């Protein structure tokens, strides 16, 4: 789960990381009063889960409170990469001496949280990593012990010569690690970490991604989710406990299991079609899940045909068949459905479907070819 910059700032402030003053606003009036309190020139930043906010016109300077209100009015409601801006962050336009990068990620290879620091900050760190990896210093942390003081100092010395700044940065490293662990993060990033002309070290921008698996037992983190920042169909799917990602094609896919769901999308493409979504209904698929899945897929007007691809292991194919029958009784599905079922209780599933005049296939390739053809005819 991605957090907004203003939410990440709050979590970093909680552990004591020094930051410029600033606050979040939902209206131009709020932006104006924050700008008045801060005084001087401020920056208004759109709060959306998207890179390239500046290029899209979502980051603006305002020299006084009235301008802050005007700029906020421009940015609020703006679309950036398909996402509507509902909030802006108002921060002072501070004078900056140096910019660095400090990030902490959960690394798959070392299976540990890994610090990445670079004195080349404020830019796209992935680009730095790809083009000049020697400019990034990496340090894995053993989570059994946490970040040792000498490790924090080592990282800080990568960034600064002045020992007062080194000590300040080392403390920030320790605090960032603390925030990472306390919030079950998979990424916590300060980009940039800046120094001011008078020598202070502060975090200017923050990004935190929370491990979705933490949310089951951390309702305090769950409330940070911004439903409006998601594709509406994806938010609806999440509430129905379905793993769903919307794509641009016209073949709707309902599959059990993530790997098979990806392979199904790939096979749709292989046979010349274009998948409309990724959808994993999971292992124990109740008829309810199938109904919800069909509702979400049929709400997409681009979908011209729907494919069910179910390999029954734990999933009982008769449950899925019952779900399909129940769904088509509840609401009209106006596009053709191709059903592929095989595995646990398949004879019963075929009987259920045949009972209402529906048919099913047992071969995946045959089903995909058929649904691709139907989608092309319907387009």
């Amino acid at each position, binding site marked *: 789960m991605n957090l907004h910059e203003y939410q990440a700032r709050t979590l970093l402030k909680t552990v004591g990381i020094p930051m410029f003053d600033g606050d979040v606003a939902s209206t131009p009036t709020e932006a104006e009063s924050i700008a008045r309190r801060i005084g001087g020139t401020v920056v208004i930043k759109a709060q959306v889960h998207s890179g390239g906010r500046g290029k899209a016109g979502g980051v603006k300077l305002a020299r006084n409170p009235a301008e802050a209100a005007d700029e906020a009015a421009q940015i609020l409601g703006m679309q950036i990469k398909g996402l509507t801006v509902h909030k802006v962050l108002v921060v002072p336009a501070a004078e900056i001496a140096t910019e660095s990068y400090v990030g902490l990620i959960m690394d798959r290879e070392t299976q540990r949280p890994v610090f990445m620091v670079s004195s080349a900050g404020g830019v796209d760190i992935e680009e730095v990593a790809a083009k000049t990896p020697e400019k990034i210093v990496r340090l894995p942390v053993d989570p059994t012990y946490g970040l040792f003081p000498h490790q924090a100092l080592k990282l800080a010395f990568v960034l600064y010569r002045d020992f007062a700044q080194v000590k300040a940065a080392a403390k920030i490293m320790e605090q960032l690690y603390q925030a990472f662990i306390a919030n079950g993060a998979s990424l916590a990033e300060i980009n940039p970490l800046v120094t001011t002309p008078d020598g202070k070290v502060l975090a200017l921008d923050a990004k935190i991604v929370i491990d*979705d698996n933490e949310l089951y037992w951390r309702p305090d983190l769950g409330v940070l989710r911004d439903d409006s920042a998601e594709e509406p169909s994806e938010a609806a799917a999440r509430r129905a406990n379905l793993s769903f*990602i919307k794509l641009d094609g016209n073949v709707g896919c309902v599959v059990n*299991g*993530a790997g*098979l769901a990806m392979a199904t999308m790939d096979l749709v493409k292989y046979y010349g079609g274009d*998948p409309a979504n990724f959808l994993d209904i999971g292992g124990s698929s109740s008829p309810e899940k199938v109904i919800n899945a069909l509702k979400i897929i049929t709400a997409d007007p681009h979908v011209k045909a729907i494919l069910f691809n179910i390999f029954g292991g734990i999933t009982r194919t008769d449950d899925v068949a019952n779900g399909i029958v129940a769904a088509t009784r509840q609401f009209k599905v106006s596009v053709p459905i191709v059903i592929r079922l095989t595995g646990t209780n398949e004879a019963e599933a075929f009987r259920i479907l045949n009972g209402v005049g529906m048919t099913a296939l047992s071969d995946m390739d045959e089903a995909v070819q058929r649904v691709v053809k139907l989608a092309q005819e319907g387009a």
Partner: protein
Amino acid sequence: MSIFADRNTRLVVQGITGREGSFHARQMLEYGTALVSGVTPGKGGQTFEGKVPVFNTVAEAVKATGANASVIYVPPMGAAAAIIEAADAGIPLVVCITEGIPVLHMSRTMPFVRANGLRLIGPNCPGLITPGAKAKIGIIPGNICSPGRVGLVSRSGTLTYEVVNHLTRNGIGQSTCVGIGGDPIIGTNFIDCLAAFQADPETDAIVMIGEIGGTDEQNAAAFVMEKVTKPVVGFIAGQTAPKGRRMGHAGAIISGSSGTAEEKLAAFEAAGIGIMKRPLDVIELLKGKGIKGVKSKA
């Protein structure tokens, strides 16, 4: 022979009285697995299905029944602790089926697992099955498998079944099928399984089913080039997946430009791994590498 699970496997089920645990324990018993005990704290002294003794701790189960492998069906919040308990009880093979364990829990658990020298498979995996030894540890449906000489390793569940089903229907049996799991931090990776299959005299060829995210497949391809002399064929799921989105599995995500299907397929190609463009291709590719549809005598 086979890898990891064989005729000497004596299994304990952690979480045997739970909904998932009891369902799959029954399936494993039906398949013929030597399921010798179960563990659910607070339910020690009970008997499962009239024949499997239930204990309060793994250590008791090991002592009383000689269990040498464990499978975990404990809910996400207690699953990492269950792995540690099994490790502490000296179990050399632990298979964790549970999906949804926080990555930080696994990051803290892995140093303990390594220090104790056990083999952990998973988490978030379907487990493994050795059809020739009637040893099924996990949730892979036994009826789609058949004994034979092709080893299979996969990050997925149902996609594995799809491929195994093609193999069995075409008379190509399996030595062992291992699902290593879809999480970012897992105990056993592709290389571990490739090395084991390479060393197993009863495995003639290897099928690898990977997916987007991470570098495990790329590392595995490099390993194949250097160390594997047996024929290998492979598939990568998620060729049409968008960047930056978690495709169901917590580990199936393209971060930035790394972990793409193209990158992994290129590594396969460079290593001489036969590339399956679709699951069905496994048959022709194996035949091309001299593996015929002949069932083993095992």
